[in-house]
């Protein structure tokens, strides 16, 4: 039990350290580029939510939503940079419902994309895997035809070893 607790504890510590760094960088950016940070903060709220609710290690949902969300936010950031770049201009943008609609619609599209596309891609992946397995099995069959069943000795040995390990592990647990 203690062994299982240790990695979780490590991750928690690492997460706290990361958060500290993020807060430091954000504070620094807020000081030197406050208008941009205001637009980004309000514009990328869906992305942040997606990041928080996405519990997968790869954060695919957050990346997808964030990427598309950023497309919606980026024109307003550009507007800020090319026109008046102060806090009131930034506040004007975030108060503009149309602007918010554009930003959040982009995020919503990102969500839609994330919900729809992986299923389609996974179907392709499954089919490709099946083809690959069939091809490998064919190769193995050719090898057996040419060299006999003893060509699978290594595999059988490993399987036996695994079984042995499993058995001994089971026995040690029961001990």
């Amino acid at each position, binding site marked *: 039990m203690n062994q299982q607790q240790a990695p979780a504890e490590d991750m928690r510590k690492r997460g706290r350290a990361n958060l500290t760094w993020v807060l430091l960088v954000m504070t620094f950016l807020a000081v030197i580029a406050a208008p941009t940070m205001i637009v980004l903060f309000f514009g990328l709220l869906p992305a942040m939510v997606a990041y928080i609710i996405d519990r997968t290690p790869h954060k695919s949902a957050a990346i997808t939503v964030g990427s598309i969300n950023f*497309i919606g936010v980026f024109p307003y950031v550009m*507007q800020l940079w090319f026109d008046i770049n102060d806090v009131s201009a930034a506040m004007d943008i975030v108060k503009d419902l149309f602007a918010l609609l554009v930003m959040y619609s982009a995020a919503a599209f990102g969500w839609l994309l994330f919900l729809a596309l992986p299923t389609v891609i996974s179907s392709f992946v499954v089919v490709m895997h099946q083809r690959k397995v069939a091809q*490998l099995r064919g190769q193995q069959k050719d*090898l057996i035809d040419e060299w006999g069943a003893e*060509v699978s000795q290594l595999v059988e040995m490993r399987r036996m070893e695994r079984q042995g390990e499993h058995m001994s592990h089971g026995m040690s647990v029961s001990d």
Partner: protein
Amino acid sequence: MAKAQEQAVETAPPRQDSPAPGAAAAPVSAPKKDAPEAAEDAPETEFLTLGGKEHDTGIPIPVRPAPAAFDPDDHPPVTVNERYMVYPSQPLHDLSSPSAQAYAAEDKREPGRQLYALVCNPGLPVRTGVMQDMKRKAINGLIPLVDFGSEYWSPFDHTCMFVIFERPLGGRLTEAFGDKPLKVNEYELAKVILEPLAHAIAEMATADIQHRAIRLDNIFFMDRERHILVLGECVTSPPGFDQPSIYEPLERGLAMACGRGKGETRDDLYALGICALFLLLGYNPLGELSDEQMLIAKIEQGTYQAFCANERIPMALIEPLRGLMSDDPLERWPMEALELWISGQKKTPIQRRPIAKPKSTYGFGGYKHKSPRTIALFFAKNVNDAARAVKNGKLEHWVRQSLGDTHLADDINSLALHAKVHEGSPDASDEVLVAKTIMRLDPEGPLRYKGFSCTPDGFGAAMAVEYMRKESFQIPGEIFARDLMGYWFSSQREPNKDYIIIEKTFQNLRALTKINEMGYGLERCLYELNPSLPCLSPLLRSVYVEYVEEMLEALDQVADSVDSRTRPMDKHIAAFIATYFRHDITPHLKAVSDAKDEVSLIGTLSLLALMQWRQQTEPLLGLASWIGGLLGPAINTYHSRKTRRSLEEKIPALVRQGSLPGLFDLIDNGERRMLDNTEFDDARIKFAQAEDEIQTLIGDDVDQEKQALQKGEKATAMIALTVSMVATSVILTVMSM
């Protein structure tokens, strides 16, 4: 036909056990009143007694099986060495030997030549070495051997050895007397009998040949006028085998017939002395006694005394007879002494040494013994009582107190102690204890163990006959295992230089018996000790393989008649080849003996291929086909199916060439095998890699859908990221314009 074969195979070897047909008609007379009880248990004798019409002379003659006349349509004549015709329809009973049947023979190149053929018993080892010597050089005074060779003899349904002799036209010496008593006077004896026969023995001695079959009924006249006296054949059975034991010196007469050994010229002279005595007296003075009683008389009184004590021997013949019949081999007249006597010169008379008598007799087996040698004789017949007598100290006490031989008594005591200490172990069994005690009591006598008795130089022939009779090496094997022959040598009171080589041979053979591989063991000992013994492999029953050069041809010959699933190799064939093939075949024998079927098969092929290559033998179509059909397991040692198919396709062509080296090269090509192994290892690795890949895709612990979905999600994220970067770039470009 089968009956004839049975008769042939059984007549000679089991002579000790089975009464000869016809022996019952004239058996040896019953034992005397005071005969030992044990004598009654003696095996029935297989000898007839020679007699005139009115009186039985008591001279033993071995039974000669009457050869049958076979229908020439069923049994056509046999051609020996492509020259001599032997006719199964024309038996010659008068010329038969105890172990070989005589048939008329004809020389195709000289049709008028007077010949006869002896068809040897296939169940007995013959003396081909002596045959070669006799064929190479004619010996005066010995029946001329014209030729010999092995051929198939249809009446026996067996391949037999044929020996072609010139026909003795005057018949046997014993038949020359007709109705007259079988007796010659002292002058005739010296001139007509002893002189020619002594010269024959001398000439044989020069050629290092011992006759060992000199007996009254084996002396012939070569001419019709009966002037040329010759010794009969001596090659159709082991040395001394056909001899009634009365003709044998004590140390050999005590052994079983097949174990009497090659012997020495002195043994021939002893037999000549007995013949001379019989002819001089006209009868056998010990004819009333059984074999055992005769041996006891010889032991207790000495041969000369036993025979001549109550006879009138002419003065002139006392010394030669005493000299020839001396029981001490070193004291017995050598050839030179006899030749001196024949030439009229006198030799210093042998000093008579009285036989030492014990203070009291030793009772055993219903007989009161006066000599340790008779005790040994009786011990051999009653092992249980003998062991008891040794263990309870009775024998030791008698030897110490009555015989006064403390050294022998100590030996017996230590044997008894050893048996008690190691009780239960095979080395201390009653049989071994008694055998060793016998060797101490009668060191000059034969080795006697479980009814098997032989002299050291007779062990080989005895072993061969024992195997031919019982198809078992049980007793000879035990003799080797217990090192009884080594004990026999160590029991000798006086060192004998002749025994040094034999002892060394036995030590080497004993080491061979311990190797449990083909080509070694007791079969190897059998062939090492019997240079003229044909290979006794069951596979080669129908052929006669005497030389290793004939082995491949013989296997080729039998290839069509044997079960094709059997291998052309067994313990006998391997031992025969190992004994006579003069090249190092140790690795081949190791492979032949391997427990793995395929390795053993390749070993067999490699050995036979080596022989064909070395001997430059003609193509062996039958043998190649036989082995080719067995090569399945050997081909299967290759992993690649393609290679196997290729080999299988190539075999028929090599079989048609009759080439064993070709087959071996095909099956055990080093380069091909290395390539096969390397490629097989690669294939195994490829297979394992494929399996690993499959397991990562569809392994038991893999959730395929989840994995695919994760991949989809990742791909979606990548797409979104890419789109975002492109869109950002476009926006940046548009707005900056």
